[in-house]
């Protein structure tokens, strides 16, 4: 193994203390012979040493009492006449959704659908030609030209 591979193992499995005995032996043997990797290893252990030797802090004396007080306060709130049990909130939301749905449906029924006028083919032509004549200001019938006949 070259130095790069050794340093990679050092930064990972070796310092994680999750290395197989065989691999640890290989790395240790390399460290004994390689001052560069040994220096790298020393630098790496130096930065984690303050953590490995960190003192454990004792929990503040009033911690439990504070937690207990807060639990008891919450319990008291829970029995208040103004306090609603938690399931009431999703139920209220569901009820609101249902009411909104039915209200929207009622509203939709009040809106009249657009009137669809179905005309026969002949009636449609007559209607359109009348409209066209009116638009052009011309009476095609007087000119012996029956627009309707052209289409019909």
């Amino acid at each position: 193994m070259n130095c790069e591979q050794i340093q990679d193992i050092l930064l990972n499995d070796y310092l994680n203390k999750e290395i197989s005995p065989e691999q640890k032996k290989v790395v240790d043997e390399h460290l004994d012979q390689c001052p560069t990797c040994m220096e790298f290893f020393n630098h790496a252990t130096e930065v984690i040493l303050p953590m490995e030797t960190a003192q454990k802090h004792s929990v503040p004396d009033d911690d439990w009492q504070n937690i207990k007080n807060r639990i008891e306060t919450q319990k008291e709130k829970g029995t208040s006449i103004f306090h609603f049990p938690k399931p009431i909130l999703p139920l209220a939301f569901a009820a609101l959704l249902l009411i909104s749905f039915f209200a929207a449906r009622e509203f939709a029924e009040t809106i009249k659908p657009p009137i669809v006028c179905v005309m026969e083919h002949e009636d449609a032509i007559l209607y359109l030609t009348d409209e066209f004549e009116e638009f052009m200001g011309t009476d095609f019938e007087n000119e012996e030209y029956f627009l309707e006949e052209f289409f019909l």
Partner: protein
Amino acid sequence: MNNMDDLITQDIIKKASTGDLDAFEKIYRYYAGFVFNVSLRVTNDRETAKDVSQEVFLTVYRKLKNFRFDSSFKTWLYRIAMNTAINTAKKESKIKEKALKSHIEEPGKPWQNDVNKHMDQVDNEQRLNTLLSKLQVQERACMVLKHIEGLSCQDIADALKMNVNTVKTKLRRAREKLMTLRKDVVKNEL
């Protein structure tokens, strides 16, 4: 710490989940040290750690009735503790970042150099706090759980709800970062 789960029995957990405060106190006494120390290291502030610790146990108390024993109680509690500590640390660091920005803008106050120069003069505790403060919150959490609490990478992954390889990457990156910082300190001292 490995046999915590053996001592906090299902019976105690079930009793606590029904609101039995004596049973809950047993759980608290067992895990309080871990929760407080991890919170302290992740947030880097004693008062904040105190608040985090209380918040963790209140959350545990509230959610106990939903605990189904599908996973280890220890892992479940660790996860609540780490989530609370990490979220608080993130909020706090945003506030500090704002404060730091205004501090840097003032001329003649080389805050960064001060920290580096003092690193070797202060005791282990302060050095530890300085090192941890140089890491991102997630990296800090991984390093604390690995090198202070002695958890395996798999346990860290479970506590942080991360892939084990992500944990390993974060640990490596954190070590590299701290080594670079150390080099800079040595350079400054020369």
